Every structure is written in C-alpha cells, then in structure tokens.
C-alpha cells in the first residue's frame, strides 16, 4: 500500500511518498485456531476457510503447518502474512538443517523467534496481522504457546485465537485436564469447533485437526462436523417478533 500524494504547486505535479508502506487492515483472513496439550503431545484444530471481508471466499486454506521436526504452527488473521511467516521459518529451519550437527530448533526456540519478529514489526507500525499458535514436542516435553500481532506472547496448556478465546476457552477451562487421550482430545476440540461453527460467522464446516508427538506431525484430512438445525424455534424464527428476521 503506497500512499502517494500529488502536490500541485502550479508549475509541475510533484509526487511525494508521504508514508512508507505499512499494514493498516487485513484482507483475506482466517478465523480461530484452537489447540490443546494432551498425553502424547499437542492437538491443533482449525477450519479451512479464508474470508474476504464478510464473504466466505476461500474454502481450502491450510492454516496449520508443520515446522521442522518438532513444531506445528497455526495462524489466524491475514493469510498472506501467514505465508510470509512460513517463508521466514523456512529459511530458519533450512539454516538449522544445514548445520547438520545434531542440534535442532525446538518449539520453544521457534516461539521465541516468532515473538521477536512480531514485536519488531509492531514497533515499526507495520505488523504481521496474525495471531499465531505454536505447538510442539521435543525430548518428551510438550510445548504450546501463542503470539499475537502486537507481540504479546505466552505459553499455556490450551490456547485459542480470535473468537476461540471467547467461545472455546471457557469450555477448555472446564473440561481440559492433563494427560487427555488422543480420542478425548479430539472430542474436546470438536466440541469447541462445533460451537465456533454455530456462532462464528466466518467459520466454515470444513476442518482439519493436526497432531504432533515425539514421532512427528500428522495433519488429518479435511472433514466436516455434524450439525443440528432442527430446533423447534428455528422452524419459525420470527414467531415471537413479526417482521424481524
């Protein structure tokens, strides 16, 4: 986004670049990510939608990606900025691999690197418009953390972005416990994603759940959740208020 302001002083029009390019608002956005620690590692769920404002335009966007051997990155917010972050991390993990010395970047290191990147961009008033979720397992230890577009960063047993913070986390606060089995973890995440599907207007019914354990990353095939719309009050929604919708 270049702001060029033509200045007309009569003789000639001078075009001055008043401001350097910086992000003001996002265009194509992804909605919530929900992630939890479980017995063997971390589970992360997201839908595959990319909204263009209020239009649910793209329906096949993978918002959770594997990073290196030990980490998973999920992003909500501007999709192009997410792709940029993936390029940064690609370079980082490539350099790490080239050392070939038995050392490797774990989820903690990547989380901190991303925190530095996000915070530095925020300081330049040119943020990467994302909230990132970083999960991983290294040397038997699970790690789950989050970084926002202003550089706020923390770790927790369960995290969510966007609407997930308001709709999913209360469920997780009640029902999450340490050492969930894989099946229980998936059930819990599906419960959260179903609520989001009903109530978040930018959610679509096509989701992926990714799992990371000491062995590595698995991303499920996209699937949809069963929903129920046959509540009696849905049959005649304006029954109590004629003229409304």
């Amino acid at each position, binding site marked *: 986004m270049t702001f060029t302001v033509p200045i007309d002083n009569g003789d000639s029009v001078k075009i001055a670049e008043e401001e350097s390019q910086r992000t003001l608002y996002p265009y194509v956005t992804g909605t919530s990510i929900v992630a939890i620690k479980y017995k063997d590692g971390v589970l992360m769920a997201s839908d595959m939608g990319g909204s263009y404002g209020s239009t649910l335009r793209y329906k096949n966007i993978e918002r959770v990606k594997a990073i290196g051997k030990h980490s998973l990155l999920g992003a909500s917010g501007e999709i192009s900025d997410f792709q940029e972050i993936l390029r940064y991390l690609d370079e980082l993990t490539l350099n790490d691999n080239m*050392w070939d010395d*038995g*050392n490797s970047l774990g989820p*903690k290191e990547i989380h901190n*690197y991303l925190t530095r990147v996000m915070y530095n961009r925020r300081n330049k008033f040119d943020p990467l418009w994302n909230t990132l979720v970083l999960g991983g397992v290294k040397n038997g230890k699970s790690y789950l953390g989050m970084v926002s577009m202003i550089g706020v960063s923390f770790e927790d047993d369960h995290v969510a972005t966007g609407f997930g913070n308001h709709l999913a986390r209360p469920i997780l606060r009640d029902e999450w416990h340490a050492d969930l089995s894989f099946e229980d973890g998936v059930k819990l995440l599906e419960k959260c994603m179903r609520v989001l599907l009903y109530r978040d207007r930018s959610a679509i019914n096509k989701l992926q759940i990714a799992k990371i354990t000491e062995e590595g990353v698995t991303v499920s095939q996209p699937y949809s959740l069963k929903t129920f719309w046959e509540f009696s009050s849905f049959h005649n929604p304006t029954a109590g208020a004629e003229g409304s919708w």
Partner: protein
Amino acid sequence: MFRNQYDTDVTTWSPTGRLFQVEYAMEAVKQGSAAIGLRSRSHVVLACVNKAQSELSSHQRKIFKVDDHIGVAIAGLTADGRVLSRYMRSESINHSFTYESPLPVGRLVVHLADKAQVCTQRSWKRPYGVGLLVGGLDESGAHLYYNCPSGNYFEYQAFAIGSRSQAAKTYLERRFESFQESSREDLIKDAIMAIRETLQGETLKSSLCTVSVLGVDEAFHFLDQESIQKVIDTFEKVPEEEEDAGEGEAEPEAAPAAGTGEQGGSGDQDVAPMEI
C-alpha cells in the same frame, strides 16, 4: 622456523604451500602460560596457570565465562583473547535473546573459526595470536574444542596449550580414556594434576592455578582457593609434611628452589610482555 622471504604478510604463500604468518601466530600461542581443558560426558573443566607480569602485579585472567553453559580458556596474546571472548559473549547472548535457548557450543566455535579465517585472507589484517580452549554444553552433552589462529578447530577429550603444555599433554594422554565416564571430582583432580605437570617441579599451590567447572546441571563457575587447595592436599600431602618437619634444613634448600623459580621467570623474558 627461520625468517624467509615469504613471511612478510599473511596473504603470501610460500612455494611449499605454507602461510608463515599464520604459523608464527600459532607460535605466539605456545609462548603463553599453560591452559588445560578436559571433559567427561556431562562436565567440562578448564584450568590454567596463574602468571603475573611481575611480583608487584596481579595475575592475568585467562579463563572467561561466556555464558552459563560455555567457558573459554586462552593462551597467547591476552588482548586478542579478551576481544574474542567479548565476541563469544555477544553471540551467545544474542542467540539467547532471540531463541530463549542456549547457543550450542558447536555452533559458537564455528563462528569463531570463521572469524579467525578471515584474518588469514586479508592483506590488511593479521591472524589472532591466541589459542582458545572452549568448553560447553550442547544437546549431545559436554564438548571441548580448541580454536587455532589458523581458523581450524578441533574437538578434544582433553587438551593443553601454552608453554610446557607438552608435559600436561603427556599426562593427559595416559589418562584420557577414562575421562568420558569420570566423575566431576575426578575430572577436577586430573585437571589440577595436569597443571602440576606444567610447573616442572615448582610446588603446586592453589594460588598458582585457576580452575573452572561447568556441567549438565551446573552453571559455569570458578572454584575458590579453598576447594582447589583441598584437592591439591589429597595428592600433595606427603611432600608438604616433609618440608614442615625439616624446616630448619629446608631453608637453604628453599632458597635455591626459589632461585630456580626466578630463573624460570627470567628465562621467559624473551616472551613479549603482552603475552601471558
């Protein structure tokens, strides 16, 4: 090594494929006082001989903490050593800040070696005149590296550099096979005994040496005089008792002993004052 027409600058090869300036830089390392490093699976010990410019001055610092998990001992031009230690500290802290994770020592020594190599290939620079024994922890355990002015680096189980280091190396060669499984205490004892070898007869006292330890659950730190003396006492008990008993007779003997110590010092007067 004698002067020849190919040794004026570092960017001139000799016909036999040698860079003499680099080799002369390695000579400078041999002039510094001894520094020793040894490692086990989980610990690294760095030790050095305390050498003072004169009786009036305090001794030069030769061991530096780079981070909680990395230490370095130097021999040669101390000024160069100090500058490189600062570089190492800087690299380590930058990595910690970005990744909240300790810099693997294997990567640090490669950065150091690359920095040294640059000085062997620029006509306006000179090689660093200091050898560095870098001890530290990695994901794969404890490591000890030696960084050379030439830009080479090697990994060691145990090594000694500086003057009279050959005596220490001989001692270490006899014992190194047991170091990998050594306990922390045995490793420290071996380091002090190796130091004793470099003193060639001079009585070993805790004031003469500096010892540092780092390990898997132990941040880099120096051992205090008392602890060092305790270790010395475990193997130097008998000679000290004899000296105490025969004090009256020992006095004239003590004087020549001090005399040889001084002669040893004056022998080192070919060493430039900037090298420790």
